[in-house]
């Protein structure tokens, strides 16, 4: 800026100076706000997440038990080697994988089907919708106990209903395979409403004229569903899918209440194994290594999720 050209020489300069200072102050007040507003959250998360995770990684390279905290022997990758060569751990992963696969498939299938019906407007829709959402609102422990109670082989309501239509009693929680399906039924019961919620929203977000255009274009209901409805709601359904993948993969509460990991250790998920190793056997180092493996998987899935969430956030 040239002073000679400003009409009121010195005054103009003073004004310009003040404005610049104002701008500076504003920028620094913005920085202050960022810092001030973020720091409590950041502090809590650093203390409660970052610190524990780094400690976990540290422990995972040591032979260490919470019971004898004074003796901590570095073992390098020993814990990981041991875990990865342990067939029992692979069993846990296979069981967890089966559980995740059954739960997520059932929940997506049923959720999309029910959501597709719920997108239509009909009398009493809101009331029915609210009732359908109820299982999702229960504590997972209550869900576990409720199903354990209903699945009791002697006096449970489910076996009673089955026997009344001539099906022999099933020892649901006493056999590995039956227990897997029982747990999947409970998890599906609890979380299908979540898929219904998201699917309904996604389907209702498709403009009516798109359906009308498809109808006029001669698309059959099935063709319409697979060529229009599903692809157009895919981004939302994908988020629902990833969320369910993550949640069912780390499922712990339900199994504590429903099967207690049994029969034997056959219905222990990876999470359950971590808890058992850490808090029953107190093999803290080994548990840490397993926890780190679990974390890597979950963080990988979360990264996919966040990328899609951010993309959706920009779109809407």
């Amino acid at each position, binding site marked *: 800026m040239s002073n000679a050209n400003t009409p009121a020489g010195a005054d103009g300069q003073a004004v310009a100076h003040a404005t610049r200072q104002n701008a500076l102050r504003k920028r620094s007040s913005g920085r202050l706000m960022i810092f001030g507003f973020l720091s409590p959250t950041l502090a809590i998360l650093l203390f*409660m997440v970052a610190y524990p995770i780094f400690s976990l990684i540290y422990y995972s390279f040591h032979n260490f038990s919470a019971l004898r905290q004074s003796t901590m022997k570095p073992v390098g990758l020993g814990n990981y080697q041991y875990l990865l060569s342990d067939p029992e751990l692979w069993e846990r992963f296979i069981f967890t994988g089966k559980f995740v696969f059954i739960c997520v498939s059932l929940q997506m299938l049923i959720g999309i089907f029910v959501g597709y019906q719920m997108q239509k407007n009909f009398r009493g829709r809101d009331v029915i919708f609210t009732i359908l959402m109820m299982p999702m609102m229960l504590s997972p422990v209550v869900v576990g106990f*409720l199903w354990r109670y209903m699945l009791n082989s002697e006096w449970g309501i489910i076996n009673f209903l089955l026997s009344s239509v001539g099906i022999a009693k099933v020892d649901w929680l006493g056999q590995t395979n039956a227990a897997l399906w029982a747990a999947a039924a409970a998890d599906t019961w609890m979380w299908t409403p979540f898929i219904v919620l998201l699917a309904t929203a996604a389907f209702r977000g498709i403009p009516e004229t798109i359906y009308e255009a498809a109808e006029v274009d001669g698309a059959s209901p099935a063709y319409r569903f697979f060529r229009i409805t599903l692809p157009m709601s895919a981004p939302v359904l994908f*988020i629902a899918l990833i969320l369910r993948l993550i949640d069912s993969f780390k499922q712990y509460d339900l199994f504590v209440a429903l099967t207690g990991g049994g029969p034997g250790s056959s219905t222990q998920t990876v999470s359950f194994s971590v808890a058992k190793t850490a808090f029953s056997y107190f093999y803290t180092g080994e548990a840490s290594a397993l926890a780190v493996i679990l974390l890597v998987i979950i963080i990988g899935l979360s990264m996919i999720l966040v990328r899609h969430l951010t993309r959706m956030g920009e779109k809407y």
Partner: protein
Amino acid sequence: MTHARTSTIDLAGRWLVLGLLLVYTIYNVGPIFWLLLSSFKSRMDLFTMPPKLFFTPDLSGYQSVFGVGAAKDSASAIGVFDSLVNSVIVSVAGTSLAVFFGTLAGYVCSRFNFIGKGDFMFFVLSTRMLPPVAVLVFYHLMFARLGLADTRFGLILVSIFANVGLATWIMKGFFDGVPKEVEQIAIVNGYTRMYAFTRLVLPMVKGGIAATAGFCFIFAWNEFAFASILTTTQAKTLPVKISAASGATGIEWTQICAAGVVLIIPVLIFFYLIRKHLLMGMTFGVLGRS
């Protein structure tokens, strides 16, 4: 309306859909109904075959949950009612603080660009995805060392950490829905950014804050994994207490069912109050913004 032409296949398809919906509704609602019914059953009625639909209600389950006239399991343990009190204290305190911090962080994430914002947002959300048992391996040691084990304060701390990420994301979603011009006009008129935030923007997202609080409360209230590992006697919350509700004669089903009903009531109330924001809460503030 006129009669649409209906072929047999259409008709069969429609009945099939209705049938499947009916089966799902029974699957969905039945267990809740059974929970409610069983919470009023006496020990005798619980195990009767065939199960009874009509019986004399027995309130012993609710009496023990609310600490009326029921004996404690043992002298050292707290009663079920005490655990209910713990649940209320931990959830309310944890929710309030998580929402407070989350509101501040959510505002900054909505309005400012700063270095590492994407990473920060990911970090914040990943706390929601974290398997509790993984961090518990460390908390278990840390809490013992810091004297936080089996204290409400420790649980409140965990509750804040577990919910602040969710609160940040949902609140960011709500702040994104407020036009940036609100602050720009205030700043042009000589007000500070802080004034614009507290006096203009915050009142505009009141509903959002309430909804966020509702969500955090539901999660804090139902939380089990952390509380079950980090408490032993005194600080047990209701979900933890009922998981250990096995007396001399096996599991106290009536008591568990009654506790389940008591646990679901505040959730239902919150659920009803925040029903409009359900979608936002479940998708971290990304979908269903209105």
